[in-house]
């Protein structure tokens, strides 16, 4: 079978879609819609000052004021959120951060270690 130029471009895009998430742990194309929820899952027994501070920083305060912030201990994830959050915790570990659109995780990552990192991650994934 002979591949033409369009086929090669399509194949290249497919490879990018498949491979990039393996490197970054994030979906390559951010959601353009504002998030419905931004959820942190953390390990309460291991809560260093940096992490605790990022979880209380101005970005989280702004998301919380919009009613879109949730923060759960990994052993206290509500039953209705476990199906979407458990796979993230299994893959990334804790602490982690997930952006939720329409009851699905559209992006997730290791919890950023600074307020600026957290702000950038949320912005890239549609904001709130």
């Amino acid at each position: 079978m002979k591949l033409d130029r369009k086929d090669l471009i399509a194949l290249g895009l497919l490879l990018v879609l498949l491979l990039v998430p393996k490197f970054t742990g994030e979906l390559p194309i951010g959601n353009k819609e504002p998030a419905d929820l931004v959820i942190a899952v953390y390990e309460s027994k291991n809560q260093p000052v940096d992490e605790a501070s990022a979880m209380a920083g101005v970005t989280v305060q702004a998301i919380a004021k919009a009613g879109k912030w949730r923060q759960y201990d990994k052993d206290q994830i509500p039953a209705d959120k476990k199906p979407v959050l458990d796979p993230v915790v299994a893959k990334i570990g804790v602490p982690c951060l997930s952006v939720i659109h329409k009851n699905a995780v559209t992006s997730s990552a290791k919890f950023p270690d600074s307020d600026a990192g957290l702000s950038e991650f949320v912005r890239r994934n549609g904001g709130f």
Partner: protein
Amino acid sequence: MVAFTLTPENVDRWCGPAGVATFDFAGHRRILNASSFPMGSKGIQAAKPLADSLEIIPEEQWSDLISMKDRDKSWLQDRIDDLACKDQDGLGYCHGYGPVTCLEVMRKVAGLPYVELSAESVAGRVTGWRNEGGDPEEDLDVLVQYGACEAAYMDRANSISPSRWEDGWEQNALNYRAAETFMQLSGDLWLIAGTCALRNIVTSPWFDWWGHCISGSYRLKNENGKIYRLDRNNWGMEWGDKGYCWMAKGRGRGQGTPSGLVAVRVATPFEQAS
């Protein structure tokens, strides 16, 4: 920034914006003298010792961390700036108001919708619904096992007559429990309460000199080399600065080294289906 610092002189005043005493609190002190705390709890002991569960941050490191958290606006107080101060209004249930405030704060931190909780539903179980002091450790145990119901279930504010409350309050309370708690009765409690502030863990300290239990560890500040901790009373928004006060190290009258404290780090994440 909170402008009210607790001193031996202003401890029992209810201060309006101008710091003028507007209420005599003798009745409260009569109920809550230090001997009314039956230390040596016979409680359920669900809580773990804080000092065993927490990496203590030495006081020498506090100044740098205070600067960092000031810069990042990442103190507990920054997260709960719109949370109203609870008001026990002369009821002898400070031992319940402190821990229940902790639960409200940690729910707020978790992003859960604000629900005013009844401290009476916790402290009443501890005292057998009598208006008297108690051991905050036992209130914490109640908070873990039975929870605090929504204040809306009570027939009126500060009611201790559950027979008049709306049916179902006990079932409702099971939705609002503390999932991970700590207590500390010995050791360097100034150091521990300050570490909690730096790690954003709300505490409920009590003070023998005051015979009183409040909530605390909302913030630290360094003023000319002297460290102060920001705590919050349960005497409504008119006391101190919207209920808040700065406390310095020491065990004397008006000073902030706790005689004991309990803490809540995780709240059960209940929210009403919308």
